[in-house]
Structures are given as structure tokens and as C-alpha cells.
């Protein structure tokens, strides 16, 4: 299974329930919701979509029906924005 990790030590800032990821190399800002912000904190270390799904379901009872595919889609989006990298 693919492993993901943050590409760099990006700053992250919270505004109400949302999180903004600051990429000061490319001057981009990316908004994620509260659950996305939690996923982002996990990506300090190598994660697969499956390990993140398990952690999210333990933390948030409201998203118990979230699937590994949902997480993968989210991670691929962050990958596309240049915020994550694959780890082998």
C-alpha cells in the first residue's frame, strides 16, 4: 500500500474549525476541514490511507462510514498540491 508523508515542515494555522496549510515555498494556502486537519497532523510520520482511516474513525465518531478510498482521494489531492510525497 502507498505510504504518504509531508513534503516539508509546513506551517498550519487554525481558523474556527478549519485548518489552513501554508506552503511558503510556493506561496500557496490550502484549506482543509477539521477532520482533514487531523489527518494532516498524522502525516508528520509515514502513513497509508488505511492507517489514517483507522485513526480518524477512532477520533471522530461522526465519520464512522469513511472509507480508505475517501482518504486516498484526499491524500492524492494534497499530493497534487505538492504538499505530500510518497515514501517507499
Amino acid at each position, binding site marked *: 500500500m502507498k505510504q504518504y508523508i509531508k513534503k516539508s515542515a509546513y*506551517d498550519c*494555522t487554525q*481558523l*474556527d474549525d*478549519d*485548518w*489552513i496549510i*501554508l506552503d*511558503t*515555498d510556493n*506561496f500557496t*494556502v490550502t*484549506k482543509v476541514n477539521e477532520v482533514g486537519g487531523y489527518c494532516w497532523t498524522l502525516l508528520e510520520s509515514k502513513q497509508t490511507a488505511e492507517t489514517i482511516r483507522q485513526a480518524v474513525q477512532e477520533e471522530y465518531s461522526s465519520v464512522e462510514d469513511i472509507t480508505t478510498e475517501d482518504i486516498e482521494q484526499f491524500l492524492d489531492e494534497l499530493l497534487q498540491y505538492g504538499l505530500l510525497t510518497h515514501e517507499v
Partner: protein
Amino acid sequence: MNKTCVLIAEHYTHLKWESNWIGEFIDKYFLHATISSVRFDMKISIDDNYGKPFKDYEVDITKSSKYITFRRTDYLIKATSDYKEVTIYVHDELALKHALMNVYSSYIVYHNWGLLLHSSCVLDNKKAHIFTGHSGAGKSTVAKLSSPRMLLSDEASIVKITNEGIKVFNSPFRSELEASGKELPACLASIQLLHQATNNSREVMTKSDAYLELVNKIFYWSHSKEETKQVLNLLKVLVEQVPVYDLHFQKNNLFWELIS
């Protein structure tokens, strides 16, 4: 060599120049400061006969241990790294205006004082209200429709940002509507993101959406990670304190009923 002292927001700025048209430009847009033996915040020397007419907004930035240089087709800025001593070489009036905005924006960000925001700003009941949006959204239209209210800016608002409050100052960086000279700084009560519409309506935005919308409305020439972080942190303090709204407006002054 001609010289004068002008006040830009809270910053006493010493200006020095040779050509008459530069003096006329300064007289037209800047407030001459009358305080004697003042300690200047910035010293700017301006020279002309530089470069070619405006081509695009591309600015090339280079840094050494002591200086930072901003180079555009129509202007060149050489500043000490704290922006206290600056030399500007310009091609024409447009280049001079943009170069001064570049310098001032860099100065206020470096000193963590505030931001220069691409917007108009109107005074109503001693409170400041900012109007911003994409190019052509109606920033100048709103400024004109707000008459006889006074304008703090019609193009670039000078916003002082502290944890204790947000204040807007009269801006000399104007496009069409000149200042009367009587505009006093005011606390910022609201920011409107403009959308031309057939009906008037105003809805508050989430802070995160406001942040994302405003981040590309800041006049800022990025050259270091630390300063970029400083800009983004100032913006965060701004959206945490001031409500930001989507304003759908007709081309008349009735939208003020939703703001006042």
C-alpha cells in the same frame, strides 16, 4: 536636489529628488509633514531616466547581505535590508507610484506593522469599511458611489494590524480619487468582497474562506520564507478581528443600508 518630509500613515519619510515632475507627483499625493527635527522612519531618494515603459508586473528580486533590489522594466529599487534607506530609479509616473507601493509594502511587512491591501476604503460614521474583489469587481465604482463619504483609499488600503485592533490610514497610493487631506485614520469595521448583482445582499464569510480570498489581494513581493510567514500571520490576525462579507451590490448607493 529637492527634499521634503511626508507622512505615510505613521511613518515619517524623507524624500529627495531632482526632476520637477517628481516634486509635482509628491505634492499631489502625499501629505507634507510639518514636524521639525523628526527622526525619519524611511529615507527615499528618487531619480528618473531609468528603463523602459511599463511592460508587465514581473519583478526580479535579488538580495545581498546588506541590500535588497527589486527590478521591473520601468523601475529599480535598491534598499537596505530594513528598508530604512532606499534609492528608487524610475521611468515615469506609473513606475514611481508602483515603486513607492513596493517599498512601503515591504517596509510595513518587514517591521510587522501591517499590510497594503488591493482595495478601496470608505469612512462611514468614523468607521472604515474596505471593499475588495477581483479586477473589475467594482472597487472604484463602490468608492465613487459612496460619495459624499470620505475615502481612505481607492486602490491600495494601508492597514495597521495589531492584536489590540485594526486601523486604516489615508493612502497616498491612489488611482483616480484624490484625498482631501482631512481623512483621519479609523478602526476597520468590515471588509466586503464585491460581486456585481441585480439585488443587494450581504452574507458573512467563514474566517477560513475570508483568509483564502484576501491572500491574493495583498500587495507583496515575496522573497523570503520568513517574511511570507509574517504576511500570512498578519492576515490571520486581520480576519480573526474583522468580519468579512460577500457583498452583492447594484450600481447605486443602496448597499450602504446593509453596512451602516
